[in-house]
């Protein structure tokens, strides 16, 4: 990993008075992948991207490179300055941000996790494979570890730096025609309960053998946290960004202060604390303030960058992506607040319903209602008379996430986190009349 500070200093020196902003992202990642009870892929990658935005009298250009040598940077600058000269002026272009104090999340980097050896990863995988062989099962999955760092700096004095380590252990187990899955992410690999993940995936694979076909239709569902994550991700992507709101393309558009979801739903976007914590500033170097998007079903706040904030006559809350971009600001640290029901209580209170472990290949159909489709996966079960009765074949859902989040029966009392594009933490949800539009053959 290149030294961010020295690269930043060199970039801003080469700008020679031209307003400039530099974003450096670098990462060291290692991933052991296993399938068919053996290690199928084992990789290590070290990479850096230096992305520079320059402005001149209402004109803007961005260039990126991964070689921090003086010669490479000079060539890139020369090309960008040429681009600037020939461009039309953009009257809406905002100047770079001035420095604002930013909190530092020091608790998210653990050297032992960043440098975990391939032998240690192989050891964990070996332990799982032994368990699977004993159980007549087959293991698939990944164990990924590494670290990433981001610096945002500009010629007006912004200097924001964040570094974190990560470990994600993900297991899919197969027992005949039964599948089970469990995953645990952590900033510190020592916090992962590997045995618990192994056991959860294996138990579910055994439980889901010999699934029966059931008719598509509307059912009460209990969505485990991984399945809820899929719905919440799309809601975050298409619902809570101020640009979508201002274009009238969000389900929240024109409804701030009004009830849009069930009163059982509270959604925050919080990079500073809690289960979705992460980088405490955005790609303009502005602090990511904790915001409440939905408070007991009522739409309260939106994700803003400086541009959307200016349009809404408010201040940014630090949700900018690298500028310029077409998405606008987005919430990347979503947390759906837990409720008071355990998974067992949700099942016990269900006369007839379907328990869903996770969804597969979800996609958006209509942005205004966050209507989505996708398949169930890794263990789907029929609940009858308050207990898990039998495994069922996978089903396709076609459902509006907004409408589904208005039919909440219960919210789980335990959240689980996942790492993808940002972080999302959710509890399980019990939802009535969830629409399954078709079934598949397994």
């Amino acid at each position, binding site marked *: 990993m290149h030294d961010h500070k020295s690269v930043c200093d060199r970039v801003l020196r080469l700008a020679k008075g031209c307003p400039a902003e530099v974003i450096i992202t670098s990462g060291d990642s*290692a*991933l*052991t*992948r296993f*399938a*068919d009870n*053996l*290690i*199928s*892929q*084992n*990789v*290590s*990658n*070290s990479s850096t991207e230096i*992305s520079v935005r320059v402005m001149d009298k209402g004109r*803007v*250009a*961005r*260039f*990126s*490179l*991964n*070689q921090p040598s003086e010669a490479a940077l000079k060539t890139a600058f020369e090309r*960008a300055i040429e681009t600037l000269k*020939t*461009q039309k002026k*953009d009257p*809406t272009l905002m100047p770079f941000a001035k420095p604002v104090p930013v909190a530092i999340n020091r608790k998210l980097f653990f050297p032992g996790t960043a440098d975990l*050896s*391939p032998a240690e990863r*192989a050891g964990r*995988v070996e332990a799982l494979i032994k368990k699977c062989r004993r159980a007549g099962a*087959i293991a698939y*999955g*990944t164990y990924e570890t590494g670290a990433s760092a981001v610096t945002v700096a500009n010629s007006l004095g912004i200097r924001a730096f964040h570094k974190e380590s990560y470990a994600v252990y993900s297991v*899919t187990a197969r027992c005949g025609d039964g599948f089970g899955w469990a995953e645990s992410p952590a900033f510190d690999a020592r916090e992962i309960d590997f045995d618990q993940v192994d056991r959860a995936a294996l138990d579910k694979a055994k439980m889901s053998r010999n699934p029966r076909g059931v008719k598509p239709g509307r059912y009460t569902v209990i969505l485990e946290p991984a399945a809820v994550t899929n719905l919440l991700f799309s809601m975050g992507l298409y619902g809570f960004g101020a640009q979508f709101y201002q*274009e*009238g*393309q969000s389900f929240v558009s024109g409804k701030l202060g009004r009830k849009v979801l069930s009163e059982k739903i509270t959604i925050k976007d919080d990079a500073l604390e809690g289960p979705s914590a992460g980088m405490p500033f955005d790609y303009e170097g502005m602090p990511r303030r904790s915001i409440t998007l939905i408070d007991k079903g009522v739409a309260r706040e939106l994700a803003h960058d400086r541009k959307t904030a200016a349009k809404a006559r408010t201040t940014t809350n630090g949700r900018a992506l690298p500028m*310029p*971009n*077409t998405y606008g600001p987005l919430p990347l640290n979503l947390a759906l607040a837990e409720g008071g029901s355990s998974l067992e209580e949700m099942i016990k209170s269900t006369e007839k319903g379907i328990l869903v472990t996770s969804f*597969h*290949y979800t*996609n958006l*159909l209509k942005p205004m209602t966050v209507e989505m*489709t*996708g*398949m169930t996966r890794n263990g789907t079960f029929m609940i009858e008379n308050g207990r898990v009765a039998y495994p069922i074949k*996978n089903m*396709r859902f*076609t*459902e509006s996430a907004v409408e589904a989040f208005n039919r909440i029966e219960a919210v789980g009392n335990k959240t689980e986190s996942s790492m993808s594009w940002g972080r999302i933490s959710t509890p399980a949800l019990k939802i009535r009349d969830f*629409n399954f*539009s*078709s079934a*598949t*053959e*397994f």
Partner: protein
Amino acid sequence: MFTFAKKAIEIADKHRVDFGDIRIIEARRQTLSVKNGEIGSLNDIVTLGFGVRILFNGAWGFASSDIMTAGEVARVTRLAITIARASASLKGKKARLAPEPAYQDFWQTPFMKDPFAVPTEKKLDVLFAADKTLRKDPRIKSTVSSMNFIREHQWHMTTEGSRIEQVLLSSGAGCLAHAVNKGESQARAYPSTHGGQTLSMGYELIENLDLPGHAERVRGEAVALLTAPPCPSGKKDLIISGNQLALQIHESVGHATELDRVLGYEESYAGSSFATTEKLGSFRYGSPIVNLVADATLPGGLATAGYDDDAVKAQRWHIVKDGILSGYMTNREFAGRIGKDRSWGSCRADGFGNIPITRICNLSLMPGGASYEDIIKDTKDGIIMENNKSWSIDQKRLNFQFGCEIGWLVKNGKKGAMVKNPTYQGITPEFWNSCDAIADAASWRLWGVANCGKGQPPQTAMMCHGNSPSRFRNVKIGVKA
């Protein structure tokens, strides 16, 4: 660069590995977009780095870096060997590579106009012109017009003696308008959704696409969709073409016939496949008129190159022949599992930082005998759907649902009313067996998929799917939430 690469090969040879290779890649990528009359993105990205792959005692190790020094290439090669040794510590099936001759060669994408030599100002002029026309209606609330260009210079050297240099080029462009009114949002894109059309060509593609010339129609159709009736529910004959049929091929045939996932090696992420190896040569995948050909030599194809990242020479082969499953996408590791003594050559990596994996090649539906007009004339109760909007398929590639931007009902041989939010569902073999008409070569076009995701860590690859409009009988349409 080969002098730099040689260091890795020497270290690999010294450690007596089964196989080793190094790929050095210098890439330049330019993205430009105009959104709502402003610059949406303007980035010129240059990267350089290398990846070393080692097969030791039948197990894989891979490491990569962007630090281009002799010391770093030695460190990374030794790290790849250490990782391969850790992989080998688990006893199991040993990877063996199908043989392939060693090549010393140079190959590059043919093109007419170097897109990187075209001034940025000229490109932005085209995008601003398209965007201006798109926004000439107050109901259009969001517009994006974009271009992207990628040039990848590769140097690939293997312990078997291959020394291959390739320069791959692609260009792409598209425009999109979102109309919003009274709680309804509708989108229309040209020439296709998901960033537009991308092919292995130069700037001549952008000139041929003529975004500004199509913007008025796109705007009009986006606005018209706001008040169009919804797609009816039920069963109808479905006519699809363009990027929708391309994605249908991609999801339900391309991914389904990647041999690594057929063998279970993608089970933890994207899933496996119903098209299992015992079905090869006998399974009726589609009706007898369905011929799907993989082709790494196809002019303009995004997966077209002289060699794949296993150093296997480009080939052309049937995946489905006369409706029967006849081949797979293979790499050298898995080709032997289906009794083949040579890979078909469909193994590629995303940049220098990823290990090569089995990918979909260019995969095209061969043209049929009828004209497109005759297919419509011959349809009593059908629907035409155009431009993919959403896609989803189960992890064995059986149950799928697609949503499109726009549809037109066909009644008694005539294209009629426009409908909004058209969707359809199906089961892969049933769907392809219901194909009873494929238009002729006159309407056959190549469509790029520039964002195919696969693998862990995730990798993106590009490929093309040529097709002409095709009809599928009695398909479930108009899926309701």
